[in-house]
C-alpha cells in the first residue's frame, strides 16, 4: 500500500500560465498598499483598549457625525446612480451637437480639486449666491446644512455612476427592443423588462463606487457644510479635528469605526451585486 501522493490543488490545470506569479503579486501588492496602512490604523486604535474605544464609539457627537456621513452618502449615491443612468443613456443613445463636450464634462469632478468644488458650491448656494438666492425665498437653505453636503457628494460621486453603466448601455442590442416591440410590448414595458435588468449589475457597481467615494469625501464638504456639530458635521472632519488636538488614538478610533461600517456596507452591496449578476447578467 503505497501512500497516495496528495497535492494541494488550488486551481484546475490551465493552458494560460502565470497563475502562481500573478497571485503572488496580487497578494503582495494588496498587503503593502491596502492592508498595511489599515492594520496600522487598527493597531493604533488598539492602544486605547476596549473601554476607551467604547467611550469614543458611544460619544453622541461622533455618532451624529457618522450618521450624517453614511446617511447623506447613501442618499447621494442613490441619486447619483439614478441620474448617472439617465446621463449615460442620453450620451450613449442620442447624437446631438456638443455630445462629446458633455461626455468630457462628466469627468470634471474627477479632475477638479475637491476643495475648489466645495468653495464653488458654497458660493453658489449661499443665501446671497446665484442658486441660494433663488431658493432662499422658498425657505430652502442648501449651503451650511446637510442638504449642502448632499449636493457636494452627488457632485463628486456622479462620474462613477455614469462611467460604470455607459459601456453596458452601448452593448444593448437594438434587436432586443425591436423584438419586444413585435411582441406587443409598450415602450415603458420594454425599458423596464428588457433594457433595465441587464443594466442592474452595472448600476449597482456604480452605486458602490459612488457610495465609497461619497463616504470618504472631505475637501468639498467642509466648505459647503457649515460643520455644525450634531447637524452638518461629517466623520472625516471629526478625525481632522482630533488630529489637530493631537488626539491620535481618538482619530484612529473614529477612522476604524468608519472602516468597519464601510466594509460591511460594501460587502453587503457586493453580495447583492453578484446575486444580480447571476440573476440578470447571463451572457
Amino acid at each position, binding site marked *: 500500500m503505497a501512500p497516495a501522493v496528495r497535492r494541494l490543488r488550488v486551481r484546475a490545470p490551465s493552458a494560460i500560465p502565470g497563475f502562481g506569479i500573478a497571485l503572488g503579486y496580487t497578494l503582495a501588492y494588496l498587503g503593502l498598499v491596502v492592508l498595511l496602512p489599515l492594520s496600522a490604523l487598527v493597531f493604533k486604535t488598539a492602544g486605547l483598549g476596549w473601554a476607551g474605544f467604547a467611550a469614543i464609539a458611544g460619544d453622541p457627537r461622533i455618532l451624529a457625525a457618522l450618521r450624517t456621513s453614511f446617511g447623506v452618502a447613501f442618499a447621494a449615491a442613490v441619486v447619483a446612480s439614478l441620474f448617472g443612468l439617465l446621463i449615460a443613456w442620453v450620451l450613449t443613445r442620442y447624437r446631438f451637437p456638443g455630445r462629446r463636450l458633455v461626455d468630457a464634462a462628466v469627468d470634471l469632478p474627477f479632475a477638479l480639486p475637491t476643495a475648489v468644488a466645495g468653495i464653488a458650491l458654497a458660493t453658489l448656494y449661499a443665501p446671497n449666491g446665484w442658486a441660494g438666492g433663488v431658493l432662499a425665498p422658498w425657505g430652502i437653505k442648501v449651503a451650511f446644512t446637510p442638504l449642502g453636503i448632499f449636493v457636494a457628494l452627488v457632485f463628486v460621486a456622479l462620474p462613477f455612476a455614469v462611467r460604470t453603466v455607459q459601456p453596458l448601455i452601448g452593448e444593448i442590442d437594438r434587436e432586443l427592443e*425591436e423584438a419586444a416591440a*413585435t411582441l*406587443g410590448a409598450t415602450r415603458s414595458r420594454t425599458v423596464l423588462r428588457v433594457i433595465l435588468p441587464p443594466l442592474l449589475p452595472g448600476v449597482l457597481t456604480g452605486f458602490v463606487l459612488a457610495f465609497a467615494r461619497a463616504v470618504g469625501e472631505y475637501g468639498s464638504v467642509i466648505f459647503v457644510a457649515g460643520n455644525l456639530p450634531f447637524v452638518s458635521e461629517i466623520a472625516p472632519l471629526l478625525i481632522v479635528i482630533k488630529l489637530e488636538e493631537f488626539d491620535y488614538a481618538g482619530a484612529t478610533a473614529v477612522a476604524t469605526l468608519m472602516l468597519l461600517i464601510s466594509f460591511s456596507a460594501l460587502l453587503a452591496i457586493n453580495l447583492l451585486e453578484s446575486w444580480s449578476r447571476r*440573476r440578470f447578467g447571463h451572457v
Partner: protein
Amino acid sequence: MDIRALGITKEFGRAAALRDVDLEVRSGELMALLGPSGSGKTTLLRVIAGLEQPDAGEIRFGDVDATPIPVRRRGVGFVFQHYALFRHLTVSDNVAFGLRARGRSRRPPPAEIARRVRDLLDLVQLAGYGHRFPSQLSGGQRQRVALARALAVEPKVLLLDEPFGALDARVRKDLRRSLREIHDATGQTTVFVTHDQDEALELADRVAILNGGRVEQVGTPDEVHDAPISAFVMGFVGESTQLPVEVRAGEVWFREARMAVPPQGCAPGPATLFLRPDDLAFCAPQDGWPGQVLMIRRAAGGRRAEVKLAGPGGHLVEIDLREGEAAMARGDIVHLRVRAGRVFPARADAAQSVESRPQSGRVPMP
C-alpha cells in the same frame, strides 16, 4: 391573412434599398425572399413588419392598410437572425413575454399562459427546457425559442430574417424541417429571408427573387429554377456556367458553331448562353467542342468536371459526370456538345449581377 406590398420604396441616405416593389404573399403561404446581400430582401421584410417605414408605398394585410399601424399593434411575429432572446429571462419567460405584455383585458390568466408556453415548447421540441436561460442553450435551440416566442402572440403573419443564417449545416437542416412542419400545422402566412437558394427552393411554396432593390421574379421553386425570366435569376438560382454567344437569324452561334438551342425569343445580337451542369454531354470529336479537363470535384452527391474550352477566351464550363465516365482525369482532352440551355440578351447590368453572385459562373463576359 394575405400580405400585399404596393409600390414600396425605401431609401437609406441616397442609396435606394427598395425601388417600387410590388409583392403579394397569399394567405397561408410559405414564401422565401431570396437574393444576394444588398438586394433589399431584409429591408422588405422589415417594412412588412413595421420595423421600417417605407418612403412610398403601402403594406396591406388583407383589406387593411397596415402602413400606419405601429409594429407593436401590427400583429406580426418576427424572428431575428441572431435570436434576440432576452438573456436575463428563462426560456419560459421569453416565450411568455408577448402574452404578459398584453393589456389587462386581453391578457390570459397565468395558468393559461403557462399552458400555452408548455404547448409551444412542445411544438418546437424544447419540452423540459423552460427553466433554462438562453446562455445554456445551443444556437439551434435558441432559434427554436425565438420561434416559439414569436408564435406565442398568435401573429397574423410570421416573418423570419435569415433564421438559419447563424447555424451550422446539420442544425440548419433540422430547423428547416421543423419550420415546414410548424407552418403546415398552423397554416400561418410566413415570409422568410435567405441568401441560400437551396433553403429557399427546398422550403418555400413560392420564391421571390430580389436584385438591386427590385423583385425580379416570383414563382414556385420549379418555375424560378426551370423557367427563369432573366439572366440574373438564371444565374442566381441553381448552378450554371455561361458562354458568350450571338443570336443570328433565329439561331444561336458560339463562335462559328451553331448551338442546338433555340434563341427563345432573344433578339438578334450578342447574348449569353447559360448552361446547367447537365445541359452538356461528352461526344465524339467531330460532334463538339474540344476542351481540357481542369479539375474534377465532388458536387451535390456526384462528380463534376470543370472543362476549359479550346480557343480564344478559354471559357470554362462545368459538366456532371455520369457513371462510366469516372475514368476521366485531370488534363484529359474531351469533346462537349450542348444539349440544352437558356439564352438571355447580354446586358451591361446582367454582367454586373453575375459578378455579385456567390457561386458558379466564372466565365468572363465578352
